[in-house]
């Protein structure tokens, strides 16, 4: 026995054989495993289908004991199988105890009333920057195509030009629809707007992680295309159709795309100019903030898709269209500027 004391450490306790250690603690480990199995089935452990009754408060002390056993087993150089078994146990327990919990409905309500609009306001500089990247090309190409009928063909090809000329031709009674999308296909167009527009928003955001190049490209590109179309159509005199059509959903759609760009620029800032942090940490710190902007923008794009599919194409008197559009813009602006200031209304 004497050499064991020297080789396995000095304290008396450390001479405990692995078998004795296992026998002594087996009951505790089994209880731990059973509670863990119940917790796997339901998080609170209250209505566990395994029929093993326990109180959720029983678990943390057991967990701490097993952690202690793991540390002891490691320091006493017990066999790898025992160490692995205990390691598996503490890993599963750690996942249960330290899991991040959110109350989903409350979190959603809080997100839209406070988090999203206040994050927007807190990063207003990025919004201005994204807006400039979108609106300057928009105005530039808009003026160019308005003044010169040939410019539009250097932006897109003839088929595309013919398509959108048809879409906004006052002779055509189905606004915003190309010839092959003639009849009333609102649901189809709704699906198309969801897939196309929200994907563009997500990509505009995500490619901000490429040092902002993707975001800048996306904003400028969309500005050029939309400005080109707007200028060209206005020059053709389709004012009765184009502006009433786009002004409504544009409130949500264009603002949301610029907000996605803003979120992309926030990611880019973390990579290009991380300040006092390492790039990796700067990215990790700012990404959740940027994400809340994108999720808010995605919800706005969803609203835009509803309006674009089920309201914008229908022929209503033009003053009504413009009134609705003014209302939409006022809603978006007041939501982003005022929601979530001060105390929430339900408290």
């Amino acid at each position, binding site marked *: 026995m004497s*050499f064991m004391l020297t*080789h*396995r450490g000095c304290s008396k306790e450390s001479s405990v*054989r*692995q*078998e*004795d250690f296992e026998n002594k603690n087996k009951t505790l480990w089994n209880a731990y495993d059973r509670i863990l199995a119940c917790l796997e089935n339901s998080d609170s452990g209250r209505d566990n289908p395994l029929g093993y009754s326990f109180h959720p408060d029983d678990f943390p002390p057991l967990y*701490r004991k097993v*952690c*202690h056993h*793991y*540390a002891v087993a490691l320091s006493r*150089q*017990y*066999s*790898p*199988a*025992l160490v*692995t*078994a205990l*390691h*598996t146990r*503490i*890993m599963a327990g*750690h*996942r249960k105890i*330290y*899991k*991040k919990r*959110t109350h989903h409905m409350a979190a959603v309500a809080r997100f839209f009333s406070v988090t999203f609009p206040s994050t927007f306001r807190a990063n207003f500089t990025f919004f201005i920057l994204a807006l400039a990247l979108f609106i300057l090309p928009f105005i530039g190409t808009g003026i160019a195509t308005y003044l010169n009928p040939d410019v539009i063909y250097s932006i897109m090809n003839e088929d595309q030009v013919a398509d959108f000329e048809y879409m906004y031709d006052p002779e055509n009674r189905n606004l915003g629809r190309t010839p092959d999308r003639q009849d009333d*296909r*609102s*649901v*189809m*167009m*709704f*699906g*198309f707007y*969801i*897939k196309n527009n*929200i*994907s563009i928003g*997500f*990509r505009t*955001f*995500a*490619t*901000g*992680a*490429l040092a902002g190049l*993707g975001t800048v490209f996306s904003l400028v590109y969309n500005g050029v295309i939309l400005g080109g179309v707007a200028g060209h159509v206005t020059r053709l005199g389709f004012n009765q159709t184009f502006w009433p059509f786009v002004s409504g959903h544009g409130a949500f759609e264009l603002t949301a795309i610029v907000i996605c760009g803003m979120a992309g620029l926030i*990611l880019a800032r973390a990579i290009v100019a991380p300040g006092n942090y390492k790039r*990796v940490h700067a*990215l*990790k710190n700012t*990404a*959740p903030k940027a*994400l809340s902007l*994108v*999720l808010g923008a995605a919800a706005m794009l969803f609203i835009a898709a509803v309006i674009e599919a089920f309201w914008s194409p229908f022929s209503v008197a033009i003053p009504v269209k413009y009134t609705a559009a003014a209302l939409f813009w006022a809603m978006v602006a007041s939501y982003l500027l005022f929601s979530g200031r001060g105390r929430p209304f339900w408290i």
Partner: protein
Amino acid sequence: MPKLDTVKKYETPEGVVIRLKIAGPVSRACAWLVDLAIKAGLCILIAIVLGVLGHAGQGLILICLFFIEWFYPVFFELYWGATPGKKSMNLMVVQDNCTPVSFTASVLRNLLRAADFFPICYGVGLVTMVCSKDFKRLGDIAAGTLVVYDTPGRVVDKITEAPAKQPPPDLRVNEQRTILDFSERSLYLSQERRIELADILYSVTGKKGEAAVNELYAYASWLFKGK
């Protein structure tokens, strides 16, 4: 312990160290391919089922495609800890602190796939994975997540029964541990391999062949439970 390893250590608030095996680009690429096949199958299925509904059906198909494209991994990561493809490769996604991946993190890491995929087939993602610690692509860095092997541990963890015999007194602790490990692992080894391994310790046991194997079993038994 070797310094060059793919094991990441995380110290819990209880003061014990959890060891995670980080997954590399190859197994993750395989998982991605499996997921790609599943997603393609899902899309075809949805197209067939909803295709009969005409134009409204087309709209619904597009909405489904949108959700499959962006939220298929988010859904499975939140409810299963991994997508079916990752499950098939025995991988899972965890937070940096070894807890299950949160909603924010899962959405972030999956939206940023668009950047990682650039310019083609995860070019950026591969470069960042190779350059960063813990094989993280951009999405993992931003979300603070890790892709690790989900190791269930060995199922059979019994040492081989043998009459106990005291090992030579000059074995160091890690050497004792190796003998225990040999005894536990021998279930998974062929007899030839056991002999081959036991023969290496000729200087310790003074025996060759099957006798050496049994000698090691006896030492392990002694180390495990004493006389």
